[in-house]
């Protein structure tokens, strides 16, 4: 990790930015549905309320596992913004996701169990896309370091449009938006009640919420990287991407896991794989 300042800035500020983003997400979603929506700071009020609840934990493993989920996610993001190896970031990110799955598996609730299984399928579906994205970034910019890639001025989006579109598709899964909000979403009406967080409550759930904020900022950082040659364009692209994700959430039903897995892998193969193959074919080496 090269730069300590951005890493620290991420560790301290990402929850604030992520929380505001979550609040904006809910208001935009509500307006698309012709509702008024909550106040912008509502996610912070929710987390504060969750921390104030009493300890009704199902077992003694949930809280430590959720804490590991938070710490590893924050570590992944800090590594990313601090200039660490992006491939390492992806693997730490996956480990963080697995801690959440472990927390869900640790309880005896059948809903939690099914949610955890589905979460594993989602991780399985999304991994190839992330790895191909890392490989593609290296191919085009010669580096796996956020700052080096940004400083190189390489216009990733121009050479990696397929990879970017594939990333957009996979982002829907990671952001828990329809059509891929199979394992957990902010609406409790799913057939598996709350999915992986069914048996998690109080301070454990608060940690999960905060981790989602960290995660969202990290993923949007990855989106930023594709447009990093121009900071204002990149910020606009990030905002537009998130807006389109919210739009997708509001215009699609949830799909079954078989379609989620098969469609993601097909798109990864065709768009991301195809993009990468084209680069090799056209660029030589």
């Amino acid at each position, binding site marked *: 990790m090269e730069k300590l300042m951005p890493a620290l800035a991420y560790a301290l500020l990402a929850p604030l930015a992520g929380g505001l983003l979550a609040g904006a997400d809910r208001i935009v979603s509500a307006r698309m*549905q012709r*509702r008024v929506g909550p106040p912008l700071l509502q996610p912070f009020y929710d987390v504060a309320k969750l921390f104030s609840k009493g300890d009704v934990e199902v077992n003694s493993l949930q809280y430590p596992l959720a804490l590991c989920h938070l710490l590893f996610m924050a570590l992944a993001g800090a590594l990313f913004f601090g200039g660490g190896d992006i491939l390492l970031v992806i693997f730490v990110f996956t480990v963080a996701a697995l801690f959440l799955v472990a927390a869900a598996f640790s309880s005896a609730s059948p809903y939690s169990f099914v949610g955890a*299984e589905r979460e594993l399928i989602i991780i399985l579906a999304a991994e190839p896309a992330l790895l191909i994205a890392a490989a593609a970034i290296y191919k085009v910019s010669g580096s796996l370091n956020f700052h080096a890639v940004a400083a190189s001025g390489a216009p990733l989006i121009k050479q990696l449009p397929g990879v970017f579109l594939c990333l957009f598709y996979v982002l829907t899964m990671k952001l828990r938006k*329809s059509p891929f909000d199979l394992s957990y979403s902010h609406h409790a009406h*799913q*057939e598996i009640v709350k999915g992986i967080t069914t048996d998690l409550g109080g301070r454990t759930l608060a940690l999960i919420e905060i981790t989602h904020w960290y995660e969202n900022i990290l993923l949007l950082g990855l989106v930023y990287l594709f447009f990093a040659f121009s900071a204002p364009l990149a910020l606009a692209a990030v905002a537009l991407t998130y807006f389109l994700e919210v739009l997708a959430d509001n215009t699609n039903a*949830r799909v*079954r*896991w078989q379609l989620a897995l098969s469609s993601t892998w097909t798109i990864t193969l065709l768009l991301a794989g195809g993009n990468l193959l084209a680069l090799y074919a056209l660029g030589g080496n």
Partner: protein
Amino acid sequence: MKTTIVPLGPQHPVLPEPLSFDLVLDNERVIDAVPSIGFIHRGLELLAPKRDFEEYVMIAERVCGICSFMHGMGYSSAVESVLALPVPRRARQLRVILAELSRVHSHLLWLGLAADAFGFENLFMQTWRLREEVLDMFEETTGGRVIFNIVKVGGMRKDIEDATLSRISSRLTAMKPQLKEITDIFLNDYTVKHRLSGLAVLPEAEARELGVVGPMLRASGVVSDQRLGNPMYEGLRWEAAVEKDGDCHARCRVRVKEIFQSIDIIAQAAGAMAADGIAAKIASAPNGEAFYRAEQPRGEAIYYVRGNGTRMLERFRLRTPTFANVPAVVKLLKGTELADVPTIILTIDPCISCMER
């Protein structure tokens, strides 16, 4: 084979009312579904011998919130049958209008719940936004959004002016483009079709054997609608909505057709209102028994009353459509995936408070 047992209900966010299925799962495939019912049984039929038969209409209405008007109407019609009471034509026309409006409301409510069951919250919100307009029409004419207190044995308690009726009819007709936009999504959207098409197919022979009623039956190709041949609907031109596929998508199509049909029926009735009074005087107490069959939004409801000449009935029995449809659900759940269970339960449009009274 490792199996888990997932208790779906009685409290579950996706179910509109308490209904319990213990699902035996192998990974996400349902091997067996064990139903439990009786969570909101209130013993309303038991009150019939304890209340004046004219007052009992209010209890009949409160059997269910969505089907409330038709329950009151069905009960009153059965008692009027025993009394051989001629109900004025205007009262019957008002009943038809409110019954069809109830059908529009009920199907809009169901569309919203179905959208919510397959994870499409925005569609749920839009559908219920249209439902609010229908509720406003109820409140404007009867004074209540859910329980109307407007039907009584012999006719109607209050009259609704012709001007109000035609205004309501025009508002419904004006709502049609928005309704079409929303229902087109149910019928044509890719992710919705992915969730509904080919799911829980009920062939015609099985449908007849299991004794299902209402849209469940009509979606399997059987032309069966209690409004056909009902003297209250004479003079009104309409067709039963029938589909052949028998899957969840076909049932959705049936209900969508019925919404537009009901709007047409209301327009026809509102344009030809009689002026012969709204209630007949009751001169005696019911002595004898009668059946009345109504076409509730969920299917055929049978109202049986038996009186012995006193002010209190001897027996009131209500066979609700959901009770006839639940055995089909138990059968359809086997072999499906967990993700489809709420959709299949909702495809019969379950009204558990009706079923259990």
